[in-house]
């Protein structure tokens, strides 16, 4: 069993995608497989794990990251072809609550008493390391709500956990990606958070450095109109300028 | 005491057992070949094995009754078991082992004293050790001590002396006789050493093939001829009691008689063990004498080293498998074992007067009662 060599199959592409993008990714890859007669192996995990796997020699062809940090990280490790870095889609944040709860209104300004809609607790991703949490914290910070909520904030390890907590009504409300909020039938969207309150939420894609460029067509397919349509279908917004200027960030 | 086993049956693997007896003697020996079912009998009484049928009643207390659904839990039976394999608690020190039952005997009469038992058993120096640091005999002594200290109402001893030297055995046997005498605690004892048993009691249960083959006085048992195996050389012992009736300071001898009034006297060397403590006139002792240590003669014999020549009358002659047992009443009732040839030569007959020739050295003192 030791020598399950990954080299033998020339007709296989390997895409390492952040687990948040699973649903559109699956659609796109399946379609691509049908079109091209190739196999696309999909590996879903958190962006951090994927980046570390790639760093340590995982045989990936493409990488989809939910945060810029990990793209930069791999760039520094010289693992990505920098010319291929593409902004894939943009996401928004939404405030959700359990389907059983009554609606409430939120004013996005500092004078709004956020505690009035938070009898016990609310949930966000852990801003230390969960991208959706970082954006949420940016929103809460910009409105001075983060301090106001004090110990009512439950920080989870990923966006689905926020969703679960709100679904079970363990938390009065939560901040998740708009796209996740759409998928669950047990939560309702109270309000979409204005994108001006946080840095743009961007999903990146890049080709992993290799001898061949065989994965490029798939990357292009992701960035194509068709790809965009599929992302949009699942709630993402299109990104107008898809080129990522790596060197600008440093 | 009364221990009644009624139609007890049990089964272990392919071996079946059935016990049916009533034990009334204070001390009863259980004797039988290896694998006969002696331990199983004890286990049934103790409640370690649950019989398939029957009932066990001890002094009006029903320990087990199959049909009535009674099965007194082991710890409520107040029995003291010395197991064949000791089963000292390996994680406890000897002191802790000995004191194990302490919390459970609060409302029981305590007749056994810790210090006395420990010094009798010679385990004073072992108290801080753990069982795995003891020798075989030391373990056995601790097991006896642990059981006695649980102040049981009935003692069940399974080969308690097998790893002990003669001297220790003797001391313990004497102690058991003492507590039995003082506190009336009945004892059932299994041993392969008939001598050990007979020093304690004449009452035997003979177990063979999972059944009680015979029960009663060992003389009667052997007479019935059921149990050829127990009647073999050196296995058959006269145990009797006598009263100190005089001293011969010069010859260093003590004399004993069956009753204060009896003429027939046994002479023992004062150096015989158990006699060394100051014995008093009229004091009662328990003696032991092998049948083949008694020679019979038609007349008093002169010029032999044999010191005791008791005149008596033959009351019984039993023949069994080539051996001849002659019971002579000479104040003490003694059984002598003689050959076919001797029976012929001496023309032994019922009612005949004979002399029992007994070497002083052949008599063993089992226990001297404190009057």
């Amino acid at each position, binding site marked *: 069993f030791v020598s399950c060599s990954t080299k033998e199959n020339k007709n296989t592409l390997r895409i390492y995608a952040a687990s948040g993008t699973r649903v559109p990714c699956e659609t796109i890859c399946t379609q691509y497989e049908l079109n091209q007669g190739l196999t696309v192996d999909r590996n879903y995990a958190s962006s*951090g794990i994927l980046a570390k796997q790639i760093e340590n020699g995982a045989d990936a062809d493409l990488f989809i990251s939910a945060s810029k940090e990990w793209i930069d990280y791999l760039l520094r490790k010289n693992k990505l072809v920098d010319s291929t870095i593409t902004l894939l889609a943009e996401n928004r944040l939404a405030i959700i609550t359990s389907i059983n709860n009554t609606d409430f209104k939120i004013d996005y300004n500092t004078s709004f008493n956020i505690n009035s809609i938070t009898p016990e607790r609310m*949930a966000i991703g852990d801003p230390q390391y969960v991208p959706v949490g970082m954006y949420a914290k940016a929103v809460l910070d910009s409105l001075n709500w983060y301090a106001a909520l004090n110990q009512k904030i*439950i920080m989870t390890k990923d966006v689905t956990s926020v969703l*679960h907590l709100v679904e079970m009504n363990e938390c009065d409300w939560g901040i998740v990606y708009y796209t996740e909020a759409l998928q669950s039938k047990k939560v309702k969207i109270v309000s979409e958070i204005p994108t001006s309150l946080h840095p743009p939420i961007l999903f990146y894609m890049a080709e992993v450095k290799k001898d061949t460029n065989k994965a490029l067509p798939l990357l292009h397919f992701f960035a194509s109109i068709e790809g965009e349509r599929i992302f949009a279908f699942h709630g993402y917004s299109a990104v107008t300028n898809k080129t990522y200027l790596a060197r600008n960030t440093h | 005491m009364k221990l009644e086993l009624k139609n007890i049956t049990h089964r272990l693997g392919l071996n079946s057992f059935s016990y049916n007896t009533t034990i009334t003697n204070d001390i009863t020996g259980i004797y039988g070949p290896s694998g006969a079912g002696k331990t199983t009998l004890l286990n049934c009484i103790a409640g370690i094995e649950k019989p398939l049928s029957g009932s066990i009643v001890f002094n009006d207390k029903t320990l087990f009754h199959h049909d009535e659904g009674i099965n007194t839990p082991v*710890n409520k039976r107040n029995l003291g*078991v010395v197991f064949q394999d000791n089963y000292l*608690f390996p994680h406890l020190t000897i002191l802790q082992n000995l004191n194990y039952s302490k919390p459970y*005997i609060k409302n029981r009469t305590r007749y056994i004293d810790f210090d006395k038992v420990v010094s009798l058993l010679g385990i004073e120096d072992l108290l801080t050790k*753990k069982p795995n640091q003891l020798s075989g005999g030391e373990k056995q002594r601790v097991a006896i001590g642990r059981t006695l200290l649980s102040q049981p109402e009935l003692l069940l001893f399974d080969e308690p002396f097998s790893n002990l030297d003669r001297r220790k055995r003797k001391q313990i046997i004497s102690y058991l006789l003492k507590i039995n005498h003082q506190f009336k605690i009945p004892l059932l004892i299994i041993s392969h050493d008939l001598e050990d048993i007979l020093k304690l009691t004449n009452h035997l249960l003979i177990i063979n093939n999972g059944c009680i083959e015979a029960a009663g006085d060992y003389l009667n048992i052997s007479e019935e001829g059921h149990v050829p195996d127990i009647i073999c050389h050196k296995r058959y012992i006269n145990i009797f009691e006598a009263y100190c009736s005089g001293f011969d300071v010069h010859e260093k001898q003590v004399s004993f008689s069956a009753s204060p009034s009896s003429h027939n006297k046994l002479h023992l060397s004062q150096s015989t063990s158990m006699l060394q403590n100051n014995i008093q006139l009229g004091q009662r002792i328990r003696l032991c004498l092998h049948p083949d240590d008694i020679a019979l003669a038609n007349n008093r014999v002169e010029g032999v080293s044999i010191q005791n020549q008791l005149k008596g009358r033959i009351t019984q002659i039993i023949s069994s498998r080539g051996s001849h047992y002659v019971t002579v009443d000479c104040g003490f009732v003694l059984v002598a074992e003689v050959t076919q040839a001797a029976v012929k030569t001496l023309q032994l007959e019922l009612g005949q007067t004979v002399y029992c020739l007994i070497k002083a050295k052949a008599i063993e003192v089992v226990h001297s009662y404190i009057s």
Partner: protein
Amino acid sequence: MFTSTELDIIWLTIKVALVSTAVSLPISVLLGWIFARKNITCKPLLEGLVALPLVAPPVVTGYLLLLLLGRNGWIGRWLDQTLDIQLAFNFAALVIASVVVSLPLAVRTIRSAFELVDPVYEKASHTLGASKRSTFFRVTLPMAMPGIVSGMILSFARSLGEFGATITLAGNIIGKTQTLSLMVYANMQVPDKEMEVARLVIISLLISLAAIIASEYLKRRNSYLSK
């Protein structure tokens, strides 16, 4: 050497590990003993239930616990409404998650230790007047000590490393429910924090080594087999 936040976290972690080991000990001893010695009818079912947190990914375990113990959970709602007790998102949640997740380990280990204790010693104890209860505490339990200690060590170490169920049931409230292993995980998810991860893992390891050494001492004191 440590920031005060770190010290708080270390202390919380140790507290959780100790408390959850203490809580799981009696439960796992009881279950281990039942599994080893009793022939109850619903045994496979109970065994499956205990094994569940081992077989299911910890996140699922945490999710199930939340379903049960959350404020809208079957048990949680009742506790909340009648006794005003909340079990999620606080210290209790940390302990519960740890206990549930480490229980299958402790139960198994302790059970096999009980299976290795010869029941004749229990019988000997009965003849000395000890009830079943008393016998259990004075004979069976101490004789199974190496296994009990091993079970406790496993519980303790598993508590230290517990992450999945904890974060689901207890969330991560900084200063309230963040343990070492949540912090390790957080640092794993951020680029270039490898040294920090290593540092935290080594701290966990040192805590568990301390526990192991303490347990060796406990065991040696109780050892009774020949050398």
